[in-house]
């Protein structure tokens, strides 16, 4: 409503200024039209309308989409962190409790679903541009799951060895770095 009121006021002001100029004629007016000046005027008017109406809106939409994707990627990063913390806790306690077993397995189910969401969102918004990065993350997820829940995992008295923990730490940091790079790349799209 306010927008229409402002538009109405602006039109009224424009008409008033036009009448004033015509009536008093104190501003000298050229009878001939310079084509360059006319083109400049048209381009200026076009930009004045195009930038706020279409370009800004497009940029806002794109920014919003990127923010949503980045939020989802950060959630995925948190889930990987959760697994890393659980494995660290198991190493510190020299035991993998049933609760921690189930928490680790559940975290991997969450990771799969979060990664799938990220892939769907990226494909929806920026088809194919991040294929390599997403394929790499899928491979990392599988390797990480195999490392953490493979071998004798869930066996009674199962413990992570120091070597497994080292490998897990290396793998986790590789994943964390890949996720950070993905966030940067989504931000630059």
């Amino acid at each position, binding site marked *: 409503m306010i927008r229409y009121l402002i538009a109405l006021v602006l039109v009224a002001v424009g008409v008033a200024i036009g009448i004033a100029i015509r009536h008093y004629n104190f501003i000298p007016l050229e009878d001939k039209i310079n084509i360059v000046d006319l083109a400049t005027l048209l381009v200026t008017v076009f930009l004045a309308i195009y930038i706020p109406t279409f370009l800004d809106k497009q940029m806002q939409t794109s920014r919003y989409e990127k923010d949503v994707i980045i939020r989802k990627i950060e959630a995925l990063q948190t889930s990987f962190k959760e697994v890393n913390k659980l494995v660290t806790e198991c190493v510190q306690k020299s035991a993998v409790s049933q609760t921690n*077993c189930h928490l680790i397995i*559940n975290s991997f*189910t969450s990771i799969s679903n979060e990664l799938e969401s990220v892939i769907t969102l990226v494909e929806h918004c920026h088809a194919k541009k991040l294929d390599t990065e997403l394929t790499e993350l*899928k491979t990392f997820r*599988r390797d990480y799951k195999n490392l953490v829940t493979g071998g004798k*995992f869930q*066996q009674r008295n199962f413990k992570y060895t120091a070597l497994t923990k080292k490998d897990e730490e290396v793998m986790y940091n590789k994943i964390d770095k890949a996720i950070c790079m993905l966030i940067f790349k989504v931000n630059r799209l």
Partner: protein
Amino acid sequence: MDKIIIKIADDYTKIPGVREEIEGDFPGEEFLEKILSPRFKQAIAEKKKLYVDLDDTAGYATSFLESAFGGLAREYKDHKIVLDNIEFKSDDDPFLIDDIKEYVKDANNK
């Protein structure tokens, strides 16, 4: 083509466990011996597909999946027979089917 259906949550357990029977409850090895392998043989004999529904469990560790599905591929010494005759359903974990197919493919390389 008709299907023989296994729903792990109903036919075996909602809490899949370890790799081997001596290691703990509901191991992949037991699932292979008692459910997966007999039904797979039946499916092959009756020229049907085996349809494995993986949903509604507490989730799967690599050890269970590798032991069960990798074990089936080792039994037949050829991953193609297994992959050609099994279909999977996994709405709970979108990458579980890909994971299982990898275990099956890698089973005879070890």
